[in-house]
């Protein structure tokens, strides 16, 4: 499934995607700011069942813009990705080597993928999760 954020097309495996929260109004009502967080952390999303940490792929402080939230599952935990819009399900693509990754303060882990008419960055969610944790360690020490 592809998503667009900050002018870049991203994708996650459909099997890792839990749901997409579409309405910015509904989402912002339940996205709560948290002090002392790592770079790119947008807040906690409360879906009424659990609290989900949200990473801001849009990378802007303009929280009034119409954004969506893709909630993915990584190692049994939920992680929200703030994106501008959803794309489509892509099932025929090939991976490409040696492409500069998009950055969110630090390069986002994953690899480039191409179809006949588009290119996107396939996020490696496990490494992204580890990257957030490492960033945490870097900032503490």
């Amino acid at each position, binding site marked *: 499934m592809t998503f667009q954020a900050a002018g870049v097309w991203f994708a996650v495996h459909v099997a890792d995607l839990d749901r997409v929260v579409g309405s910015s109004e509904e989402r912002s009502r339940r996205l709560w700011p948290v*002090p002392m967080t790592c770079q790119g952390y947008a807040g906690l999303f409360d879906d009424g069942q659990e609290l989900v940490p949200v990473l801001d792929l849009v990378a802007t402080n303009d929280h009034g813009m119409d954004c969506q939230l893709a909630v993915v599952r990584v190692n049994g935990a939920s992680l929200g990705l703030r994106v501008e819009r959803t794309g489509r399900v892509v099932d025929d693509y090939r991976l490409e080597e040696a492409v500069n990754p998009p950055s969110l303060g630090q390069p986002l882990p994953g690899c480039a993928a191409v179809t006949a008419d588009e290119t996107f960055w396939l996020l490696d969610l496990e490494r992204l999760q580890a990257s957030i944790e490492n960033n945490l360690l870097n900032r503490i020490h």
Partner: protein
Amino acid sequence: MNESTSTYIAVTVGAFRLALPAAAVHGVVTDVLNGEPTSFRGQRLPVIDLAAVFAGTRRLVAPFAVVTSARGDIVLVGVDRVGHEPLRGNPIAVPKLGLLRPDLFEGALRGPDGLTLILSPRSLIGL
């Protein structure tokens, strides 16, 4: 059967909705000068202004400070506002991913107005 609930004092700092366990709160002081110890019941107590720590806002005076203790240490915690009504509820877990100081949060409370993060007095004193 009634669930056991705890009581919290709600505070706000910038955009952050926070709370402290009522059992750790000894009072509220207004207009507290930052940068030097402040008197409270005959003691000179250090001031930790959360506006500076959480929002990077340096200010001469904190409009409110909550007198907070943990393990025998007492500090004044500077905030923007203090709620009139105590909060009651059972905290839910806050995911640690992305938090620079996960020890700061004992949990969170859901309420009609939204989510409130519960601060750990022990960790606050160590800031």
